[in-house]
């Protein structure tokens, strides 16, 4: 638990504090993707660099959301790293980014009453969503990544990412409406 008052720290002190607090969690997360200790270290370092560019965003988060943000950053950095490693790792990368590319007739927003209860419902079905869809939506709406960064992560063009986002949102809304996993 971070005990210091982060809002009184300057950027360097802030990021140092975050790093000290979460470095074990970051390393633990990287180890889920690569086994080589040197590569884990490189991933943690690259993740720290990304976080250093997002200090303003991080300052606005409460502690649970901050922990999620840090882990999501390491996860994305790991997947990018695996992708850069080449064909041998491609299959592992694809496992994490698996998205069932089906055309779905999703309910329109007009058909949904978005109340607080509906939002709770959406949160509850979140674990059932494809990992690729989760990573895509998390990257866009939580990490604030742009289309270019997401395109790099998924190995496609920025235009394809926009289409993937539309489909991902529709898929999740459909799950929320129907309350079942789409096979």
């Amino acid at each position, binding site marked *: 638990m971070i005990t210091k008052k982060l809002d009184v720290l300057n950027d*360097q002190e802030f990021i140092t504090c975050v790093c000290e607090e979460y470095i074990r969690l970051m390393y633990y997360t990287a180890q889920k993707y690569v086994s080589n200790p040197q590569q884990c270290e490189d991933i943690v370092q690259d993740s720290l*660099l990304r976080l250093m560019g997002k200090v303003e965003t991080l300052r606005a988060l409460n502690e649970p959301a901050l922990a999620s943000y840090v882990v999501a950053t390491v996860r994305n950095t790991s997947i990018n790293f695996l992708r850069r490693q080449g064909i041998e790792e491609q299959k592992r990368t694809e496992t994490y980014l698996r998205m069932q590319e089906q055309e779905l007739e999703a309910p329109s927003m007009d058909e949904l009453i978005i109340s607080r209860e509906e939002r709770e419902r959406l949160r509850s079905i979140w674990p059932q969503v494809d990992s690729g869809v989760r990573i895509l939506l*998390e990257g866009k*709406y939580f990490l604030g990544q742009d289309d270019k960064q997401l395109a790099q992560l998924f190995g496609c063009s920025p235009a394809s990412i926009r289409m993937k986002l539309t489909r991902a949102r529709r898929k999740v809304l459909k799950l929320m409406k129907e309350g079942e996993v789409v096979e």
Partner: protein
Amino acid sequence: MSNLRHEKLVDAYEKALFALVLEEVAEDEGEQLLKLNAALQADPDAEVPEQLKQRCSKIVQAKATKEKLHRAARYSRKAFRSVTVAVFICVTLFTTVFAVSSDFRRHTLNAVIDVFDEYSVITIQKDYVDKEMLEQTGEHVIANHYNIGLTWMPDGYELTDGWSNGIGDFAEYMSAEENGFNLFIVPMNENSMMQVDTEDCEQVEVTVQEHSATLLRKSTGRLTVIWIDEDTQVFYQVLGNGLPEEDLLKIADGLVWTGTIR
């Protein structure tokens, strides 16, 4: 209300909805992560390598230093990069196998290197040897980043930048005195052409790793050694600023590349 406007409003609403939900999901998952983090903090087996902590600490310090240097408008890594014009890769329709030395003498080209990756600082521990590289290659690699391994480097240098972008691999090291060297390695094919800055350079034939190589001595003091491994068709460049010639050649001789040949 027109259809297009309605669609835009619905789109905006969907995006806001997902942003809200993702924020709430993040908090839910974050509560679990905080528990995991607490468990990791209490677990001695979850301790991270000390060198990683030092690397991270140096990165943060170096960024703060870099910002100060930039504000003071002193000679910085940025200036070093602008001087380090090196390579522009182009794939052409012409079948050209890049040949070192005599081709260089015929061409005088200026080129620019694009550096894509973030700035980073790492301290290499003295006597550190990458055990995995030792097993794989038999080489005592003391620094290994972005597929570029070094079996020797002068004291006082730290990795400050690097990238692997699927076309080539790049790593840059600098000292506290702001001397530095960088390494650039590219697997080529018969349609590749490499352009290297040879303007105002004295060219000397040398041998690196039993390959015929060219050492370029620029009037500014910059040194570049380039060669092609003709068996693997991989292009190598080591460029130095402020380094003795023998150090640069020693770095080049001890280079180990573990990238992918196309």
